[in-house]
């Protein structure tokens, strides 16, 4: 009796959260799906009609789509490589005894709390400006021709900015995992004559595997929808050099008002994100059982 009562109460307590999230997901998503089969432009109201798969055909036939897909993969891949390798090394370093460890930690994680529009604009102007930026100053000190970052290597510039924002996240989580490693295990391996390299590859890295995977998957989900950094620095340019999938769909919907085409793109983005999400959910779910 009592349990049944608690069960009902529990269900009642959960229902607002569940129903709201269900509505938040289902209503817009089914609208996107519906629009993606419609010829629908906000500039021509009242002219909507069913076009079947035409929007998808246009979307895939658009050379900008393939450029945006490539850009998305380069951006995600580049940032992942920098943050995962850099984050692991930095975590190993911060795990050592250090004078003022707490302060160093604060300095390292600080970039994560800077809002995306601020970090993008600060980097674009004060760091990477071809004439007055700090990088060009450093280049000139060493007698090197300063680089016009956003002119010559726009994608690399964005990768660097985004990596700066996400390196703290990777470091912090890998460091947390590192600190849960059994000291005795390390000592035992050391006594068995394991050098620092084999210690890293046979003891530390396997222990970190899960944390690194989690970082990779969570970052991928956020990195697939990078928007603000592109919006305030290059607006997708020059040409489509820094247009990722999110930005392409933004242009089609809110600048070209092509609801149908943008919706087809939105569905493609959802499918891509779901592939990543599936892996992440499996790992998180396994942890729930434990």
């Amino acid at each position, binding site marked *: 009796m009592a349990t049944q009562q*608690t069960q009902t109460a529990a269900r009642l307590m959960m229902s607002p959260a569940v129903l709201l*999230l269900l509505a938040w997901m289902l209503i817009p998503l089914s609208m996107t799906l519906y629009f993606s089969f419609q010829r629908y432009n906000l500039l021509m109201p009242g002219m909507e009609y069913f076009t079947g798969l035409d929007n998808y055909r246009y979307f895939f036939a658009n050379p900008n789509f393939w450029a945006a897909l490539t850009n998305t993969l380069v951006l995600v891949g580049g940032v992942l490589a920098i943050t995962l390798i850099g984050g692991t090394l930095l975590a190993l370093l911060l795990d050592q005894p250090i004078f003022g460890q707490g302060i160093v930690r604060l300095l390292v994680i600080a970039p994560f709390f800077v809002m995306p529009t601020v970090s993008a604009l*600060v980097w674009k102007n004060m760091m990477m400006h071809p004439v007055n930026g700090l990088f060009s100053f450093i280049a000139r000190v060493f007698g090197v021709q300063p680089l016009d970052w956003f002119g010559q290597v726009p994608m690399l510039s964005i990768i660097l900015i985004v990596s700066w924002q996400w390196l703290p996240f990777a470091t912090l989580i890998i460091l947390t995992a590192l600190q849960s490693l059994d000291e005795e295990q390390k000592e035992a391996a050391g006594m068995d004559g394991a050098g620092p390299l084999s210690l890293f590859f046979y003891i530390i890295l396997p222990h970190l595997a899960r944390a690194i995977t989690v970082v990779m998957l969570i970052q991928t989900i956020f990195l697939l929808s990078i928007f603000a950094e592109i919006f305030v620095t290059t607006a997708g340019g020059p040409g489509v050099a820094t247009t990722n999938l999110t930005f392409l769909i933004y242009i089609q919907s809110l600048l070209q008002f092509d*609801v149908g085409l943008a919706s087809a793109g*939105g569905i493609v983005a959802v499918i891509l994100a779901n592939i990543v*999400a599936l892996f992440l959910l499996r790992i998180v779910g396994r942890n729930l059982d434990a």
Partner: protein
Amino acid sequence: MARTISTRRKVIVSAIAWLIGLTLFFPILWTFLTSFKTEGTAIAMPPRFLFFDWTLENYQTVQTRSNYFRHFSNSVITAVGSTIIGLIIAIPAAWAMAFSPTKRTKDVLLWMLSTKMLPAVGVLVPIYLIFRDLRLLDTHIGLIIVLTMINLPIIVWMLYTYFKEIPVDILEASRMDGASLRQEIIYVLTPMAIPGIASTMLLNIILAWNEAFWTLNLTTTRAAPLTAFIASYSSPEGLFWAKLSAASTLAIAPILIMGWFSQKQLVRGLTFGAVK
């Protein structure tokens, strides 16, 4: 001997760590310093590091010319508002899942997490159209709704992991003593749950404050928070670095301080309990 080697090692490792830490922090420090320069000094070559005429002029200009305070209060209203509403919805749900779990609890939790993985751009068009028709574009309420919904899964998850750590024995003991459900919540659970709720709140305010997809796309002027305000500095080429720095410093300072306090919770909140 071994001692001197380890001390020397510690000095070297510390030096490297400090160098990297300061390098990573440098853009923030540089922004802070530049905010006290005149526009002329801000772009000076070679750059001036500490020896320049410090001025507060930029902070005044940012307020008088572009009404900085309104954007700041927009950020506070939307970030805090969405966090409080999110907590009100999430606390009962997380409580139920932590203390009366059923076979389906795990599925519900994972499903909630999966809604977080829906790319914003996949629902941008419908949300924009619905908001336009309901006149929610560029309003506090509209932004609060969106921020609440996108962060709700994280709030539920974080609270769930905290509530899970509260020993059930205590609840049973209080039930034996004849406490009603209401009394159980008010006198037993709440005091034990407050630290978890506080850290959830902190992390969520940070996430809402820095959210920069919906805030940029759903606001123009009236409800525009700091993310959108800073973005407005992207258009004009020219001498505005000192003002950009002043606005940026004010925009990130409160959140940086909160973030430093909540770094432990950050790991838990953003990995959904998968890394502890």
